[in-house]
């Protein structure tokens, strides 16, 4: 089992190094194939590990070697695969293996083909490191690793100014959040003297309540950054500048869920402080609504899906915040499948439309792209939460959790958001695949993607369909060995069925409304642009503008001040002063070395006088 664990963890790293060595060369098919195959190996290893955990119920743990040994501070490179990790690594490897294969087709014509696969595999390695580590510090290493890979991949087309800007934004915002996380970890170490999960969780009750509040709060700040929760959410939509497979893998399926994973993993820290949990839930519900509203009007296909991701992350946080950790993890899993599918489908559309992102310029693509149409519709249905697809089981469960826990406001918000989700998902589908073929105006001849790309998407599609009803039972049985096994049942069957059907009907109506409204659209209607709500939403509630005005610009001014005034006037001046004073010292002292005998004699006399003074002083002291 240990070797399997190492295989699952290090196969992507080997692939990354392999592709990275070829990074400088022009496109080589082997640079894409080898990482993909290695990732399939990793996937197989992960599945075996999952099977092992599922059947025996015991975690696989290894300690690779000591990492840090300073005084009492001992951290080892330790890895463990328990129930939660097993779920995570399977999700990560499944999605990334499919994305790798898909990328071989998607990045076909890109000059950075080899480099892309190197980054992508490195990301998978970091993500595996993150979820497999058995201590907070290892988690942090993976956390930073995925951050770096995200930066590299968002800025993959670094020659585009917007891409490098988005990469910087993503990286800097994560850095802000990571500081909180690091402080949280430091606080844990300070209070408990260890960062290993087992030891930390075993000693939670020794912690002071205030300290625990701080720890959980700070850790959640880190989670907020990675999972793009308000107010650190702006980077996620901008991160769509990266290649679409990257968006699918990193910014939908895996990395952004790391925050949720952290909260789930540290559930024993969060359990004694329901206040923090409640705050997380409220923030999650707010973000769910907030992001969904922005997705309603956006005219950028990928951004719409990105906002949808944000919204779904909000759902997960609601579940995690309310203590339903297994539900959060479940939604994380199903979401990973259908959101990756949705993104990959969007990638196909983009390819077909020559990187056009505005759905108002598409329409009627279902004839040209049958496969993509089916897959994306499937993903949208799953996202909307229609029975019997995956989204229904996980999302409805979250609604039930909110209901059962008597958080009716949260429930209402989430219900409304479910409607919004359905609306914007099918707005997108309707605009892209149905209605008139508006793209003809722009002289585009869409074509379907490579067959193997569609085949690579199909496992995701299958999982998006069956992950709900197929896995729920086994999943629950396995995960609740670790996580609190709270079952959420609405006791009255009438209320339960009303809720289920009500939600389904509500969602169905939203879908129908979206379809009717957008299927006949001829072109974008400029009249709406003067609408106040439209302006508010399209400008993302003016939050980026606020950040620009109150953070970016003042910070730039401060930096400029520091550069012009402090660095140049003070620091540089001091350095220059040192240099010039040494020069001047040289100018002065060179007169001692003229080679003139007379000068030397004078200096000798000076020395003689100094010796005399010393002699006199010593004499006086002797008295």
């Amino acid at each position, binding site marked *: 089992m240990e070797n399997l664990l190492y295989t699952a963890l290090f196969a992507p790293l080997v692939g990354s190094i392999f592709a990275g060595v070829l990074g400088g060369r022009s496109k080589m098919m082997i640079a894409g194939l080898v990482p993909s195959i290695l990732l399939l190996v990793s996937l197989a290893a992960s599945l075996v590990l999952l099977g092992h955990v599922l059947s025996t119920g015991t975690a696989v743990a290894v300690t690779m070697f000591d990492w840090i040994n300073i005084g009492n501070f001992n951290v080892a490179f330790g890895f463990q695969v328990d129930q939660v990790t097993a779920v995570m690594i399977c999700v990560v490897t499944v999605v990334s293996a499919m994305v790798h294969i898909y990328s071989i087709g998607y990045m076909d014509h890109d000059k950075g083909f080899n480099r892309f696969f190197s980054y992508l595999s490195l990301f998978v390695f970091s993500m595996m490191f993150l979820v497999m580590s058995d201590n907070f510090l290892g988690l942090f290493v993976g956390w930073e690793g995925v951050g770096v890979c995200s930066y590299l991949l968002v800025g993959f087309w670094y020659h585009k100014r917007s891409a490098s800007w988005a990469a910087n934004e993503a990286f800097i915002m994560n850095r802000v959040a990571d500081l909180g996380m690091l402080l949280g970890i430091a606080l844990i170490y300070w209070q408990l003297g260890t960062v290993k999960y087992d030891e930390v969780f075993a000693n939670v009750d020794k912690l002071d309540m205030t300290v625990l509040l701080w720890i959980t709060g700070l850790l959640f700040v880190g989670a907020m950054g990675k999972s793009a929760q308000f107010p650190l959410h702006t980077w996620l939509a901008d991160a769509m500048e990266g290649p679409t497979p990257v968006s699918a893998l990193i910014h939908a399926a895996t990395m952004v869920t790391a925050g949720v994973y952290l909260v789930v993993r540290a559930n024993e820290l969060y359990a004694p402080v329901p206040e923090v949990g409640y705050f997380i839930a409220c923030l999650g519900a707010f973000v769910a609504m907030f992001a969904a509203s922005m997705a309603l009007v956006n005219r950028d296909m990928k951004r719409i899906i990105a906002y949808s991701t944000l919204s779904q992350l909000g759902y997960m946080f609601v579940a995690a915040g309310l203590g339903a950790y297994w539900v959060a993890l479940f939604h994380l899993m199903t979401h990973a499948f259908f959101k990756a599918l949705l993104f990959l489908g969007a990638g196909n559309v983009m390819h077909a439309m020559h990187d056009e992102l505005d759905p108002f310029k598409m329409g009627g693509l279902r004839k040209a792209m049958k496969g993509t149409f089916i897959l994306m519709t499937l993903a949208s249905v799953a996202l909307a939460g229609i029975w019997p697809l995956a989204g229904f089981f996980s999302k409805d469960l979250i609604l039930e959790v909110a209901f059962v826990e008597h958080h009716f406001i949260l429930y209402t918000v989430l219900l409304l958001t479910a409607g919004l989700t359905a609306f914007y998902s099918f707005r997108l589908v309707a605009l892209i695949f149905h209605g008139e073929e508006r793209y003809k105006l722009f002289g585009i001849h869409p074509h379907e993607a490579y067959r193997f790309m569609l085949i690579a998407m199909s496992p995701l599609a299958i999982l998006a369909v069956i992950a709900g009803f197929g896995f729920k039972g086994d999943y629950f049985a396995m995960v609740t060995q670790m996580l609190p096994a709270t079952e959420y049942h609405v006791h009255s069957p009438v209320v339960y069925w009303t809720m289920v059907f009500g939600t389904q009907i509500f969602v169905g109506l939203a879908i129908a409304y979206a379809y009717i409204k957008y299927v006949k659209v001829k072109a974008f209607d400029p009249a709406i642009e003067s609408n106040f709500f439209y302006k508010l939403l399209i400008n993302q509630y003016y939050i980026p503008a606020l950040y620009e005005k109150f953070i970016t610009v003042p910070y730039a001014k401060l930096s400029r001040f520091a550069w012009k005034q402090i660095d140049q006037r003070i620091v540089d001046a001091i350095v220059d002063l040192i240099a010039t004073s040494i020069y001047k010292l040289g100018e002065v002292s060179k007169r001692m070395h003229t080679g003139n005998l007379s000068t030397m004699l*004078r200096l000798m006399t*000076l020395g003689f*006088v100094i010796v*005399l003074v010393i002699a*006199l002083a010593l*004499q006086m002291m002797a008295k």
Partner: protein
Amino acid sequence: MFEAIAFYVFSALTIVMFYVTVTTNNALYALSALAAGMIFISGFFFLLDADFLGVIQLIVYSGAVMAMYAFGMMFFDSTKVVKEKTHSARNVFILTALSAIIIVAILTAPVIADNAQALFQPFADKGNVENLGYVLFTKYLIPFELAAVMLLVAMIAGIVLASKKMDIPLEKDAQ
């Protein structure tokens, strides 16, 4: 009384002569003044009952050394006035004044004279030359012999150096 008069006269004369030596631009004046100063110093020695040294001073300094300088000066044009750039007279003044004050302070401080002890006391019934002979050929025999060797070496060096040919560069001369 006689001793005091003699001391002051010799002091004044010596100081004046040496002052002339260091200030004059004419090498011949300087040489003459120096020779005169040496003779007056031998006067001090006689006053201090160091008859032997007084004679040595007269013979070696005023005789041999001065003659050597005189001969040395024949090798080059001693009447040619060397133009000396004197700069920073202030520094010279400060340094000399300071060292003078300190030396005097150290010398006149009673410490040295009080702590000094006689190593070799002269025999009262013998003369200065005889006493000096005893000490020189008993306690200081080896330094005396070394001094003799040193003088021999210096003599040879002086002859060799002075006999180098005038117009030939050093490298050629060595061959």
